[in-house]
């Protein structure tokens, strides 16, 4: 006897939506509206006071966005989700919902450059400080926890160096300290990895990347796991004590396993307003419908590229956890059995100059500041996505100037390799390229 609940591929297409409640429309409608009619004064008051569910204003929630939220919650195994205008706004909203001025967070040092700067430069302006720890230094995460630490934050596979955090062990450390773990799972998508099943308490995504796949729309999301019990600690008074903004409501008491999402929406979306447009939510939903088939192709192409790059005379090193000599190989086998993802970091012989020549001479691969597109993408992080980081921060993130970040697309693998051959040929003659 087994439950007949829908499986991953079915949820990718159907979760969060019922045509019968939407005029029979098979496709999710785009509710392009700012606001929603109240039945009467009593209904309006009840909605504003969280006495009943429903929509008030599209900054707070929207029916099209709601479908996306429920779909991602279903795919991640979360109790609730809250979509935002971008991945960065999902991170900011999560931290601002959890922390107050005077708090501290422990953060993996290998993150998207924008996230590093958020923790290094922007959050300190709000009185929230961070200690960076190298992703493989599990014991370092434990040592960095202070009395006022409110969470551990990281990317399972760090951007751009591809180093893994040991999430199950780091989660145990966090939970022993009474704090939650937040994982940015953009690189993996729930197809490859569900952080909530390995100890994480909250998941954030830039849906702009693999989840959407098409590279057309910005979007982010926060997903709640429902297991972190705020009432078991006195570290989070804004979750457990009466909140003046809702007539003395205690989010943790009233909403339990969805308390964090409720607070992030009721307070964060109300006060900060990083809402996702219904059009972009709809665009992302189109991508999620094909998530499984795309991720399979991304991963199989990535393995072929790893093999190609590893044996190439112009390549100094390759970082991808599928390689047997990679320090994360065993951990990746355990945590990522369906594939280690389509992000590859490699060093090009000839350093920064050769790297620039390579990037300027590939034609199929797109040189841009994005990852997870269906198309193959390349960038030189030290001069672009991570260029606002100083030398010390680059070193902590284990980033070198010869590093090329490759997001493998789903084109025919022969065409990608042929394109790279052109790039490597040009990289051998950097001066010629420079004089062009």
């Amino acid at each position, binding site marked *: *006897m*087994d*439950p*007949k*609940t*829908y499986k991953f591929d079915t949820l990718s297409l*159907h*979760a*969060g*939506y*019922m045509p*019968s*409640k939407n005029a029979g429309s098979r496709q999710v409608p785009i509710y392009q509206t700012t606001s929603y009619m109240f039945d009467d004064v009593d209904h309006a008051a*009840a909605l504003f*006071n*969280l*006495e*009943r*569910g*429903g*929509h008030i204003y599209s900054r*707070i*929630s*929207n*029916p099209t*966005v*709601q*479908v996306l*939220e*429920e*779909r991602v*919650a*279903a795919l991640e*195994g*979360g*109790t*609730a*989700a*809250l*979509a935002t205008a971008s991945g960065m706004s999902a991170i900011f909203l999560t931290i601002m919902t959890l922390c107050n001025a005077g708090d501290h967070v422990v953060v993996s040092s290998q993150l998207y450059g924008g996230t590093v700067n958020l923790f290094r430069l922007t959050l300190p302006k709000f009185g929230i400080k961070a200690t960076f720890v190298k992703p493989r230094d599990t014991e370092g995460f434990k040592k960095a926890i202070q009395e006022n630490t409110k969470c551990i934050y990281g990317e399972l596979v760090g951007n751009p160096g591809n180093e893994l955090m040991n999430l199950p062990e780091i989660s145990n450390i966090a939970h022993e300290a009474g704090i939650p773990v937040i994982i940015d799972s953009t690189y993996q998508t729930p197809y490859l990895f569900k952080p909530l099943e390995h100890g994480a308490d909250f998941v954030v995504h830039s849906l702009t990347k693999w989840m959407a796949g098409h590279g057309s729309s910005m979007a982010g999301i926060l997903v709640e*796991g*429902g*297991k972190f*019990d705020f*009432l078991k600690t006195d570290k989070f008074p804004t979750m457990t004590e009466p909140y003046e903004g*809702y*007539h*003395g*409501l*205690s989010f943790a*008491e*009233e*909403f*339990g*396993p*969805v308390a964090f*999402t*409720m607070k992030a*929406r009721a307070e964060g979306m109300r006060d900060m307003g990083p809402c996702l447009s219904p059009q972009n939510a709809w665009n992302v939903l189109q991508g999620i419908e094909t998530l499984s088939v795309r991720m399979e192709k991304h991963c199989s192409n990535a393995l072929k590229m790893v093999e190609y790059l590893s044996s190439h005379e112009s390549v100094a090193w390759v970082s991808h956890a599928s390689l047997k000599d990679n320090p994360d190989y065993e951990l990746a086998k355990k945590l990522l059995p369906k594939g280690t993802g389509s992000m590859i970091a490699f060093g090009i012989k000839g350093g920064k100059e050769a790297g620039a020549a390579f990037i300027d001479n590939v034609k199929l691969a797109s040189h841009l500041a994005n990852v997870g597109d269906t198309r193959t993408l390349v960038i030189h992080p030290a001069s672009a996505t991570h260029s606002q980081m100083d030398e010390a921060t680059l070193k902590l993130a284990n980033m070198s100037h010869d590093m090329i970040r490759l997001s493998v697309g789903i084109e025919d693998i022969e065409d990608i390799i042929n394109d790279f051959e052109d790039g490597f040929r040009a990289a051998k003659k950097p001066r010629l390229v420079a004089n062009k």
Partner: protein
Amino acid sequence: MKFKVNDKEVFASTGGRPFDKKKPLIIFIHGSGLSHITWVLQTRYFAFHGYSVLAIDLPGHGYSEGPALESIEEQGKWISDVIDAMEMKEASLVGHSQGCLVVLECASQFPEKIKSIGLMGGAGEIPMNPELLDLAEKGDPKAVDLMMDWAHGPAGHFGGHPVPGLHHMNLGGSIVINGSVKNALGVDFRACDNYKNGFEAAKKIKCPAINILGDRDRMCPIKAGKKLAENIKNSEVEIIENCGHMILLEEAGQSLEILKKFIRKNHPA
């Protein structure tokens, strides 16, 4: 809020308003393995509209001290003890699933204390599937997956939670998993399976009753709910279409409207 019943700590949500002895009391009683969280889309409304509300965690559930009570009869008596502990003379009771059995017992044992009863997804008896009962008593999380599957109608399986962003089955499942599958859900399922006094208890009930049923309920089908209603003298039936067993969440708005009308009429604030 936390308070003591029979020297043991009990937790109850008061719907976001302080408990006030001067206001009429409504006690909400959750289903098997669940907690006060399931009632959030009913309790806050009543708490802000003239009532004192207690969405209780039964012993051994949520934040109430254990162990879980092993029979429906004991649980019915315990609700009466809650009324006494709060120094109240009477209350209306609203139950879901197993909570309906508890309401039947309390209202039949202590008719003088109960003003009206609301039964959501109720039946006169709730015999358990033997395999599901066995899994729950062993503490196997598969019991939770099966329960969530059977408890939810189409909206639960596909989506469309009344509160934007919430996921029906993962939320319901996490409430049970965050408690104890073996010591809460397993004990509850056994208590339901053992309970044979529902129809006799129903016949003794004198206060007004409303039975709110989902036409897609696979755990307590409407046929069983109607049979229970026929055994309660002063009883109404409301059927919600396309709704499974988790009426209080799947169709939170409709069930609240029905309850509002019923409780305001029979136990006015």
